[in-house]
């Protein structure tokens, strides 16, 4: 149906053209090709010369010659609308050349527009097009400085979100010595919960604060998840004296388990939360010369506050010291009267909540997908290791370095398609110079 309509339309246009072009035009052009005939269509217009409605001025009377394998197979002249339709017999490669002499005076092809275009004729109808841009002003290309600012902003946002997750990882690693390969799934959990509750709230009376509310619930649930995990799985394992390597494998198992469980219930599709995703960036004086979307600014703010609070708490509080003590030597910690299990549970709850928060914030920028955690896990590892395993400040520094290198790398020659290589290489290089990580310490010997 539609097809037919379209053909009628093309025929009408063709007829109109015949009327307008008149008899002065060369022979070939006067014969309007049948609408279904295979033809090359060229439209010429002067972009630099726009009328009141902003439509560029058509360029009329320009001669176009079509050749195939060097033989001329057709010729056309643009009409009042700047359009020329040149019928061709065969399919295949044709060259359309524009006769520059026939251009109206004052109109010239600029230096990077050739007067020849190659068209692979494949389609029925006048659907095989060529173009000769005239008077086109290229869109403004960004400068290095601007790129730097853009990528810096992306790096900062990414680094801070990463940092929350890395902090969570460090906290758990720091108290239990466990390299938790299921850490990515904790992050996914946060994002999924945020999405789920957002779905609940987004239509009700709470719609205006839907995502915020859902985010808060997700973080709380993340903490609860950490608690449950520790009580049900890791606690009993510790009590049976399971070794760290075995625990690490358990965590690999857990990550596979959780990832597919999520997928079982949420399928693998990417989902968006109901608010904030389409915000545009703006430059305000308080963004220090960078452009942030509001959600990004809030993300940065929340991250910085959370990170500061957690770090101070860990450095100063008794619980923070207790966590390090447990990590050093659980048996001795118990002998000192620490409730080792309690301390570890604490680490799990806070670590998991932090990671869930990271997931929520990550979801604001990159939507919700059951694999999001898995994909970022290696980056988290890199950040934590780079800073120095188990040191809290280290994971902070590590995340910043990794996040920035990740986004800035492409500016310095890393191909964007493999930009994840940048931070990994940097990490390798840094570890070679400082095998214990940026902030790690060498152990005493003997």
């Amino acid at each position: 149906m539609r097809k037919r309509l379209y053909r009628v339309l093309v025929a009408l246009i063709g007829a109109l053209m015949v009327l307008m072009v008149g008899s002065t035009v060369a022979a070939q052009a006067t014969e309007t090709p049948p609408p279904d005939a295979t033809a090359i269509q060229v439209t010429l217009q002067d972009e630099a010369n726009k009328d009141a409605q902003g439509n560029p001025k058509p360029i009329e009377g320009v001669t176009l010659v079509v050749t195939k394998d060097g033989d001329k197979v057709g010729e056309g002249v643009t009409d009042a609308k700047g359009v020329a339709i040149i019928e061709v017999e065969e399919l295949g490669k044709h060259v359309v050349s524009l006769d520059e002499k026939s251009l109206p005076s004052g109109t010239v092809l600029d230096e990077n527009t050739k007067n020849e275009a190659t068209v692979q004729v494949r389609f029925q109808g006048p659907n095989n097009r060529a173009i000769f841009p005239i008077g086109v002003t290229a869109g403004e290309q960004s400068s290095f400085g601007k790129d730097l600012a853009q990528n810096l902003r992306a790096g900062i946002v990414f680094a801070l979100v990463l940092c929350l997750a890395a902090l969570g990882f460090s906290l758990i690693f720091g108290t239990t010595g466990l390299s938790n390969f299921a850490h990515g799934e904790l992050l996914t959990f946060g994002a999924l919960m945020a999405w789920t509750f957002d779905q609940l709230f987004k239509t009700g009376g709470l719609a205006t604060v839907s995502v915020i509310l859902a985010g808060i619930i997700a973080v709380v649930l993340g903490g609860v998840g950490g608690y449950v995990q520790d009580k049900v799985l890791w606690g009993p394992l510790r009590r049976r004296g399971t070794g760290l390597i075995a625990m690490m494998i358990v965590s690999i198992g857990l990550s596979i388990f959780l990832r597919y469980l999520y997928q079982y219930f949420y399928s693998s599709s990417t989902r968006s939360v109901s608010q904030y995703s389409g915000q545009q960036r703006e430059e305000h004086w308080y963004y220090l010369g960078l452009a942030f979307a509001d959600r990004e600014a809030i993300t940065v703010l929340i991250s910085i506050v959370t990170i500061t609070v957690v770090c101070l708490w860990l450095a100063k509080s008794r619980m923070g010291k207790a966590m390090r003590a447990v990590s050093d030597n659980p048996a001795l910690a118990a002998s000192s009267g620490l409730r080792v299990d309690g301390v570890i549970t604490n680490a799990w709850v806070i670590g998991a909540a932090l990671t869930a928060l990271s997931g929520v914030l990550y979801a604001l920028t990159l939507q919700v997908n059951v694999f999001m955690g898995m994909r970022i896990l290696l980056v988290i590892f890199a950040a934590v290791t780079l800073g120095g395993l188990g040191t809290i400040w280290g994971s902070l520094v590590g995340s910043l370095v990794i996040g920035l290198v990740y986004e800035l790398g492409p500016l310095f020659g890393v191909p964007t398609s493999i930009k994840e290589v940048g931070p990994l290489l940097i990490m390798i290089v840094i570890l070679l110079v400082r095998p214990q990580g940026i902030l790690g310490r060498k152990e005493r010997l003997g």
Partner: protein
Amino acid sequence: MTSTDADKFRETHQREAEGAVLRADGLIAGYLPGVNILNDTDLYCQPGELVGIIGPNGAGKSTLLKALFGLVKIHEGSVRLEGEDITGKRADELVSRGIGFVPQTNNVFPSLTIEENLQMGCYQAPKKFTERFDFVTAIFPALGERRKQRAGGLSGGERQMVAMGRALMMEPSVLLLDEPSAGLSPVMQDEVFVQTRKINKAGVSVVMVEQNARRCLQICDRGYVLDQGRNAYTGPGRELADDPKVVELYLGTLGAKD
């Protein structure tokens, strides 16, 4: 030890252990299923008593202390604190009941500073920290001078001081010490023994394992000789130190004053 010996031993133990603050009866314990390290070991400590344990390497001395403190699985027998059964209780519960423990190895938190290590000692009573800290640094001035240093970088002897200091922080009513003098310089060793005696005089019951057997037996009220997980000899410290059998088998003649 013949079975009649064992019976006699058990009998005396039963009689004398009455009213002990800490007592273990017929402990059978070990690390791996099927391999017992302690084979029917008895021990008691009266309030305010200083009990020493000596014996060859691998006899099970450390295991015995760990068993008392709930760090080794006890297959049979019981541990009682002031008459109450504490077998299998968690370590932190025991700490809150007033038992302190200094392990033989791995006895500091390497990534914590000296001060934080000591803080861990009075984890359950943080208010007492300043007071106890002054007390401990008076005994080991080196610790006070280096309070901000990470324990991981300390020398062997310095670690031992931290470990001892940590136990002193908690003001326990029963103190279990596993070779507290190992690795310390002679003057520090003496200091440890004197201090232990002093703490003990102040009313703390102490059970200490020592390889510096002669010194240990000099200060303790009563000593046990442990061999292959069993009590081989027991008696007042001085008596044991002079017992020719004990000297021959466990003390050696090196350094003995004749």
